[in-house]
């Protein structure tokens, strides 16, 4: 086993460390307080109270009402629930508006809807610009009378680029179209206040904000037509059957509380660390290119392409120093093509194959940034020396 204390973890958009404060509040519900929240005895009732308290904390972070919070098993379940719900609520509407850079949870669902539902659907997948941003005029033109739902991510997992969700939700509302946003990467990193927004569905995932894996949330605005995805018991007011993952829900509640408390640090200290890392890499390594909009971006994410070398090879060399990150290269995507996000942005294949995503958290330190800045240039230089496309004088 690789011991956690020796790891330089810069892969927080993949998953995060469970905060010690989160684990602490979870433990009683994994040990002594095992009652079922639905039970009619006080032993179960006290567990229900803990779930209610967690629901309130999640709602507070989002600026929502507790009753608008539905606990699910993960971000993917939340996404599927929202999209299927809209399609079933409006059976005559067979059009969906989404983007080319969505997480697979939305992208692959939209691509396979015909097979999944037995109906023909029209899916408009909005293009992005070279910096990963959307053209709002094209978005407005895409909205149609038969649009059942808009599903657009709040922030991109690979580049960190933030979409103008407030404006997009307002435009959908003006046309009477339900608006869903996959906010898995945004929640906890940037302020969100759903009271001021026209968002109808929002997905989040516990393990992206220092909560446990295996718990997610779907926010459903009060009054939004809703059809459950998992049908069963009356849990979550009949909106999601299945006994509650109590310990994780309690943990997620605490994680949301911590996220609110740490939001300022995330946007100041973490952002400064990210900027130092980014500027350091771009200035010390030639032919390194930043992917994504420089400003409209999560404070923790930096996606950089190192031309003429391949991402998996870079990652495995970084792994020798216990530095954890991700790549958009083909060899790491499980397919033979590089990241669909970078391709949609028109990043040349030559650069997409060598892209590395660094995603930080409040647990990163300046020493770690210095360590990575020291190790990266020789790794890239070593691989370039081996690359048939690298000309030393280029």
């Amino acid at each position, binding site marked *: 086993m690789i011991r956690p204390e020796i790891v330089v973890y810069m892969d927080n958009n993949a998953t995060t460390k469970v905060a010690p404060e989160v684990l602490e509040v979870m433990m009683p519900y994994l040990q002594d307080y095992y009652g079922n929240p639905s039970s009619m005895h006080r032993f179960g009732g006290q567990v229900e109270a803990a779930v209610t308290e967690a629901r309130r904390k999640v709602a507070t972070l989002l600026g929502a009402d507790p009753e608008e919070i539905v606990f699910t098993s993960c971000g993917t379940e939340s996404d599927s629930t929202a999209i299927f719900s809209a399609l079933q609520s409006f059976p005559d509407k067979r059009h969906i508006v989404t983007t080319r850079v969505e997480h697979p949870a939305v992208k692959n669902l939209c691509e396979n809807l015909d097979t999944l539902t037995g109906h023909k659907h029209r899916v408009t997948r909005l293009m992005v610009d070279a910096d990963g941003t959307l053209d709002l005029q094209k978005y407005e033109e895409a909205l149609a009378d038969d649009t059942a739902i808009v599903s657009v991510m709040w922030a991109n997992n690979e580049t960190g680029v933030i979409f103008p969700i407030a404006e997009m939700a307002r435009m959908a509302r003006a046309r009477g179209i339900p608006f869903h946003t996959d906010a898995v990467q945004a929640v906890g990193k940037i302020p969100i206040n759903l009271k001021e927004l026209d968002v109808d569905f929002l997905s989040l995932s516990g393990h992206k904000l220092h909560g446990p894996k295996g718990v997610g949330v779907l926010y459903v605005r009060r009054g939004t037509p809703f059809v459950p995805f998992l049908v069963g018991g009356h849990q979550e007011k009949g909106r999601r059957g299945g006994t509650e993952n109590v310990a994780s829900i309690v943990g997620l509640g605490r994680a949301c509380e911590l996220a609110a408390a740490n939001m300022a640090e995330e946007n100041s200290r973490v952002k400064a660390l990210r900027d130092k890392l980014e500027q350091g890499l771009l200035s010390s390594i030639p032919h390194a290119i930043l992917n994504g909009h420089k400003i409209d971006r999560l404070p923790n994410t930096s996606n950089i392409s190192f031309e*003429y*070398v*391949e*991402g*998996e*090879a870079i990652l*495995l*060399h970084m792994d*020798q120093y216990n530095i954890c990150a991700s790549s958009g*290269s*083909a*060899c790491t995507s*499980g*397919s*033979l*093509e*590089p990241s669909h996000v970078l391709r949609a942005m028109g990043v040349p*294949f*030559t650069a997409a*194959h060598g892209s590395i995503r660094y995603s930080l958290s409040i647990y990163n330190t300046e020493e770690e940034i210095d360590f990575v800045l020291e190790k990266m240039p020789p790794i890239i230089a070593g691989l370039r*020396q*081996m*690359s*048939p*496309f690298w000309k030393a004088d280029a």
Partner: protein
Amino acid sequence: MWEYTNKVQQHFLHPKNVGEIENPDGIGDVGSLACGDALKLTFKLDEKGVIADAKFKTFGCASAIASSSVLTEMIIGMPLDEAAKVTNEDIANRLGGLPKEKMHCSVMGREALEAAIANYRGLKIPMAEGEVVCECFGVTDLEVIRAIKESSLRSVEEITNFTKAGGGCGKCIDRLREILVATVHQGADIQKVAEKPKRMTTLQKIKKIEEALEREIRPGLRKDGGDIELVDVDGDFVTVSLRGACTSCAKSQTTLKEYVEKKLRELVLDSLIVEESK
């Protein structure tokens, strides 16, 4: 995370023969930046037609770099005619195997070698003559057919693992299926493939190695108060542990290579490499 053998990791982290030979006798340039992997292989022959030196430059993942590195190691010292017979399976076996999704890295190694030899002989690359089936990765039908035959592929997914064909937009998948069906049904050719020295499963290898150890090797060692035990079989790598008098014998390494390895190559598979467990 891919499960790479120790051999793959060694060759990736400490690649052998990186570079480009000046005034080479043969140059093989395959793959492209767009495809995500590319290999430039150069070699020089001595006066007897033996590969005296070989170097590589590779753009690609760990298994692409390891396949290139091990390939140069394999062909240095080989007569050109013999090098021409090296297959992608030989490369993969020499690495102790590759994840199935990464077999195309060994295929790229073989193709670079083939291209370099064709370049030396002033010939065209035979596989490039075919009709391009997969436009995303520029794979020809001849390449697909050869992979199906040589590696006994039985699904489109396997074709993609070995040649990358079909791994991009997916438009050629129906065509790949047609080629697969047609090739598999050409009984005669398939028969030929089956007659070639067969690919043994690891279990078959272990059984045969155990048999050979018991019948042919152990009795000899025991006469001198030694013994041998099989520890592991990983691709072509056979790890053994020497026991008894062998452990303190100064000649144990010679015994291992000159006696045990020779015997196992003769009795089981001529590509086996015997190593001592440490």
